[in-house]
């Protein structure tokens, strides 16, 4: 479709048709990420992520970092991994997961440098990061995506499977392995 016509349609079509129109032009990214995939991305670009991610937020980050610093083994392999900063609500019966939108990424900043060193390559969350983290992301050839905060119900529909794989005792802060399909995100830092 011609871009001009597409734009016009986008303006007049009622949602959700308008959204579908937009989604059709978003770049599809298959996870796991690689440095080569990341090289093709541009800041501000809208993408759809498909594949698997790990979830981790404050308590899991602290435990991961403490374990690594003490020289012990952590229960997940970070190399080439993407972490989604979320703590979902419990799943209703018949659903894969509850609401699972992004949480504020900057709270994970104190731990991010260490995780990048251990091979973390992608992060998904919301909000700005510290200058130090931005530089480290660039240095490691990693990427930080932002997704839409407060859209937890919508984003839960993009999750096709969910399984707790570590730190079960942390409840909503446990580490999950999620399989996502066409999960919308915007390239924040790379």
């Amino acid at each position, binding site marked *: 479709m011609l871009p001009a016509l597409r*734009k016009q349609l*986008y303006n007049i079509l009622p*949602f*959700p048709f*308008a*959204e579908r129109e*937009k989604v059709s032009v978003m770049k599809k990214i298959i996870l796991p990420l690689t440095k080569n995939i990341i090289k093709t991305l541009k800041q*501000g670009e*809208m993408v759809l992520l498909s594949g698997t991610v790990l979830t981790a937020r404050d*308590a899991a980050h602290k435990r991961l970092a403490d374990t690594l610093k003490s020289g012990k083994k952590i229960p997940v392999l970070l190399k080439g991994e993407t972490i989604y900063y*979320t*703590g*979902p*609500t*419990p*799943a*209703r019966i018949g*659903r894969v997961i*509850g*609401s*699972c*939108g992004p*949480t*504020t990424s*900057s709270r994970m900043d104190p731990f991010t440098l260490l995780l990048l060193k251990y091979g973390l390559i992608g992060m998904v969350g*919301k*909000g*700005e990061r510290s200058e130090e983290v931005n530089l480290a992301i660039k240095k490691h050839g990693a990427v930080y995506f*932002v*997704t*839409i*905060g*407060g*859209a*937890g*119900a*919508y*984003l*839960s*529909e993009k999750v096709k499977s969910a399984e707790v794989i570590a730190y079960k005792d*942390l*409840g*909503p*802060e446990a580490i999950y392995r999620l399989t996502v399909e066409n999960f*919308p995100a*915007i390239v924040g830092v790379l």
Partner: protein
Amino acid sequence: MTRIVDSKLIQDAVKDLFIKANTSLRPDILSGLKLARKKETSEKARYCLSVIIKNASIAKKKMLAICQDTGMAVVYLKVGQSLVVKGNLKNSVAKGVALAYKEGYFRSSVVNDPLIRKNTNTNLPPIIYTDIVSGNKINIKVVAKGFGCENVSKIRMFKPTDPVSSIEEFIVDTVKEAGSRPCPPVYIGIGMGGTLDKAVSLSKEAIFRPLGRSNEYKHIAQLEKSVLKKVNNLKIGPAGVRGNTTALGVSVLTYPTHIAGLPVAVNISCHATRSAEATI
């Protein structure tokens, strides 16, 4: 005339209000978001607003939490002095909260101690503010306050002689510094006057006012309008993708204050402002 109310009624009301607040976006907020989408010129901003609007409809239809941060439970009780509550009022509020979070499949987001940080797994305890009013009814207002926006909220003690422009600047700077962390477009609650704690409490209560209405005092309404304009000029936009809508509205509540002070609290509320109200 004295009236007796069973605390079970209050428990049920609190439960229903929290389920409603967490799954059904306030109609005024939803209209505000739809209006904002019309005003956006960037495709990205419109897309984000469309997702946010669709999110509300999915949440309502499937009884899902609008946001996974189903918040800390804050309850405002206005208790009529001629009302007698049979049973334990405080316990009934807590039980209503616990039931709502269990039956609604909401996240338990409360830890037992700020330093030990063990999840209570019930989302208890709630925060309860009570006020004694005339009459024999009880008014219950609830807020499920997420912490993405709570963490970027602020208070400053101004000097009584500070110009209004410096207050405006403080509010705008607070929103600017928050960036996209509090899930814009936000609803900005401002508490002015009273004491340190009163100003903060007012700033949270301010977001109960339906979007689109302004303060009854002309000078305050003017301040709201001016701040909203300045905040939207920041162009943070929906989800931080830049755009015309950084805030949906500004709501100020005031209270008399001390000759030596002028407390101003800014409580930012995300686009998923979750509150509900009932009177028994």
